[in-house]
């Protein structure tokens, strides 16, 4: 019963922002601790403190704006994202949250959150689209190559999966189809929650196979915006 209530539940814009800030404080805090053992204390000590403030709800919108400024400083320091897509998603969420806090009216606040929700949907759909139009992905060879020689598998043992083309063919198509049909989940609140659970499972497997742990945590942070968006639009 409680599971059904959860699947059917929705969020207001304010609740979505609150959840995103709580999740972000953990995700960015985790990233910052990893960076701190590598140095760059001038950036990551303040970043960690702002995460603490945001997680505890101290300082209103200031920690969000502060984290946005620090993310900009990180782009300059590393001359681009340190961790590819996960840093891009971090910056995107912080930009949308910052604008939502700055918005003069609820309409513009909703526009900022909607932009994030649409980008989240696109992050799955576009990934699926670029794969399905590529013959190497359609025949399964691309996923074999990912395991065979790309820099991503976290251990040499995982490379042996390249010798199981039928398994990878099925897995590759499962990912492509999931990414392509993801936008349809917006039509129903229960379907959306189930799709988000599947998406989280997908990111979890990427973290296990390819060490992309930051992607897992940061994509979760954007989910409340999509849950709010689905209820608002449909």
């Amino acid at each position: 019963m409680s599971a059904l209530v959860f699947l059917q539940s929705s969020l207001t814009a304010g609740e979505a922002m609150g959840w995103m800030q709580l999740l972000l404080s953990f995700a960015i805090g985790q990233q910052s601790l990893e960076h701190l053992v590598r140095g760059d204390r001038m950036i990551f000590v303040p970043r960690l403190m702002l995460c603490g403030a945001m997680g505890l709800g101290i300082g209103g919108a200031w920690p969000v704006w502060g984290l946005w400024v620090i993310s900009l400083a990180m782009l300059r320091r590393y001359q681009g994202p340190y961790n590819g897509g996960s840093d891009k998603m971090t910056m995107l969420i912080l930009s949308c949250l910052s604008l939502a806090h700055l918005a003069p009216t609820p309409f513009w606040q909703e526009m900022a959150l909607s932009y994030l929700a649409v980008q989240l949907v696109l992050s799955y759909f576009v990934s699926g689209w670029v794969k399905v139009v590529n013959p190497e992905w359609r025949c399964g060879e691309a996923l074999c190559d990912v395991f065979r020689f790309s820099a991503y598998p976290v251990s040499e043992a995982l490379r042996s999966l390249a010798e199981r083309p039928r398994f990878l063919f099925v897995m590759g198509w499962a990912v492509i189809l999931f990414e392509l049909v993801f936008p349809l989940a917006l039509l129903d609140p229960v379907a959306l929650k189930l799709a988000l659970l599947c998406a989280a499972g997908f990111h979890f497997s990427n973290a296990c196979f390819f060490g992309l742990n930051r992607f897992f945590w940061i994509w979760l942070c954007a989910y409340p915006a999509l849950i709010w968006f689905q209820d608002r639009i449909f």
Partner: protein
Amino acid sequence: MLRLLSLFLPTVIPSWRFFKTVAPSPRIEYRLIEGESIGDWQEDRPRPTHLGLGQVLRRMLWNPDWNEQLYLVSCSERLIEAPSQHSVDEINLRVARTLPEGAQMLQFRLVFLSREGARLVKLVEYESTQVALASLQAVAA
């Protein structure tokens, strides 16, 4: 300012083209040089043979080494696409940090792996100039 804008815009208007193609994949190899004695090329941070379930789960929360390795992959790709001293310095510093202190010179190269038909091919696409290991380690400390 324009440079910062060019770094910022792709984060708020992302392309989301993850794994559009599986491009040639970089590996960093380094060697130490002491006078006339030139060491063999060695792979920087070779991945472990096997990871247990516990290690995989722990890496969900604590994965700084691997994330730094992914950053070095980005630096290697950037160095080929748009060469910059920043990428060279980042690779030099982070390779030097993993090595024991020494008076040798450090040199790295970028080897790109790709598939041609059924076989894997390695292509050396970049070789750095030599830098004193001690000076890099002093900066990295």
